[in-house]
């Protein structure tokens, strides 16, 4: 008797949380990576900047699971410590561009007409501009370092979010409740912030997740070129470039381990963003 009443309940619960395995897996991987980015520097088996010339350029061993680099620094430690900067750059970029992009999108969709058309055009052009070029030019103007690529890419990534949010906000704008609010005498700024923003926020977040993945690739590429963060700090793009001389000698673990971390992160965040946006029905 009891089993009969329990079974349908289980079925209902299952249907409601129809999270597929893949979404659960990527969400777990993403959370683990974020935790790593925050706690990474505390988990390192060796201090990431500690050099040991006697143990330079070693292969994987029990003491150094991923081996050591040309200065004898433990690669695993640098990989763990490097997560922080590798995430901080794109994290900041996405925080700025998602906020600005959402604000621009709602503002433009609310006013409509010529302003919206013009804004759409500007976003289209900006979307097509290669982020790497802008980041390289920013390094030329402001000098290399952490902030030049972050600043440049924050602007470059605005259309990634704004284009998608804008089309969602345009749809939202046409819904009857907006008119009802207007008739009730609610101020436009209030309708936008209380209602439209809340309804498009999930789409903005999903798109921001995907933008984070792209920004991480661009930020790492700028470090790789030597125009971003400078040694001796550890960062994944920098590690790929540091490992180049050993790679040519046949010891590829530093470049490839750092590269694999970038690829893993990008895949995880891309898939998560896509799953979430498909779930909430935002069009891409």
């Amino acid at each position, binding site marked *: 008797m009891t089993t009969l009443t329990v079974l349908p309940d289980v079925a209902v619960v299952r249907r409601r949380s129809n999270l597929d395995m893949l979404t659960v897996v990527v969400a777990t991987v993403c959370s683990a990576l974020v935790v790593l980015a925050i706690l990474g520097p505390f988990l390192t088996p060796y201090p990431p900047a500690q050099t040991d010339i006697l143990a330079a350029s070693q292969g994987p061993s029990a003491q150094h699971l991923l081996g050591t680099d040309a200065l004898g620094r433990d690669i695993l430690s640098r990989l763990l410590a490097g997560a922080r900067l590798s995430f901080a750059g794109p994290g900041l970029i996405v925080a700025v561009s998602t906020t600005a992009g959402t604000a621009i999108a709602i503002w433009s969709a609310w006013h409509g007409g010529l302003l919206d058309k013009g804004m759409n055009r500007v976003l289209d*052009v900006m979307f*097509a*501009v*290669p982020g*790497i*070029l802008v980041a*390289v*030019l920013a*390094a*030329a*103007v*402001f*000098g*290399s370092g952490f902030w030049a690529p972050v600043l440049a890419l924050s602007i470059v990534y605005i259309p990634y979010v704004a284009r998608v949010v804008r089309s969602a906000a345009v749809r939202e704008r046409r819904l009857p409740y907006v008119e009802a609010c207007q008739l009730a005498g609610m101020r436009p700024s209030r309708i936008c912030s209380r209602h439209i923003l809340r309804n498009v926020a999930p789409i903005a977040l999903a798109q921001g997740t995907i933008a984070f*993945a792209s920004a991480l*690739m*661009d930020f*790492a*590429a700028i470090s*790789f*070129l*030597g*125009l971003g963060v400078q040694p001796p700090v550890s960062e994944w*793009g920098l590690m*790929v*470039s540091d*490992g*180049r001389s050993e*790679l*040519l*000698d*046949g010891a*590829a673990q530093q*470049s*490839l381990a750092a*590269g694999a971390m*970038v*690829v893993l992160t*990008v*895949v995880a965040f*891309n*898939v998560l963003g896509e799953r979430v946006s498909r779930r909430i029905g935002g069009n891409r």
Partner: protein
Amino acid sequence: MRQLPGPILHVIRTLAAAAGTMLAASFVIFVALALAPGDPVSQILGPRASDAQRAQMRDQLGLDDPVLVRYWHWLTGALRGDFGTSLTYREDVSALLEPRILTTALLVLMATILILLVGLSLGTLGGTSDRWRPAVNALVGLGVAIPGFIAGSALISLFAVRLGWFPTFGAGSGFTDRVWHLTLPAIALAMGWSAYVAQMTSAAVSEENKREHVLTARGRGISRASVFRRHVLLNASIPVLTASGLTVAGLVAGSVVVESVFAIDGLGSLLVKSVSSKDYAPVTAISMIIVAVFVIVTTTIDLAQVALDPRLRKQTR
């Protein structure tokens, strides 16, 4: 004056917009770099030059002129093919660019061919066959996540160092040697973009496959291949064309990174070197070349779209 016919008006408008974009981009890039900190005079003369020498050099370079005047001089020079002098190489920028443009163009061309071959066939496969779609999606998901510098490092490690099939760096000389040298870089450059084109193609093809006229044609018993050729392909080609255009424009910028990975002496690596040494004349020139390629490609795509899709012609009036 008689009203010009719609399509011609559209062409004129598109070309004017392209020229305007180039002009605006050149202005922004020139002024930003002109206002950047750094002193080209001490870079040329060294720290021990006298004040009189410095003043003379400043005058010679026109550094005391207002920015707008300097931009005007640069623009009129650039239109004649004179992009100024490189401070590090002590050579005309146009002389520096000439051999490197060929290298980069060959690299981009090879990558484009790869992208179209791999991207279009993978995308068509994923868009038409339900059995292959998951595999194609997985490949695409991995492909877009591998940036050029990581793909390049992995390719060097496997095919150049381990297997020794390809050289590890350089651009080679002579045609076959160049192609051999540029094969791995082209693959590294093509990887992410092939995945992007495959994604776009797959989406466009499966979208068209679901359309009523395609279902009707299939219901009438027309063979799958014929329906695909006559009803799906042409309609799906429009978004695919846009994606491919963006690709070629992005490739030139992507070559900046890939050339540095493989130490190829092309436009991209010259750009990075010049940025590092604060040598702004080549930076401005190469940025403008990248912008120009981008504008030319997108303008061509824009015009080709109107030619391909009669529905767009009405909107352009």
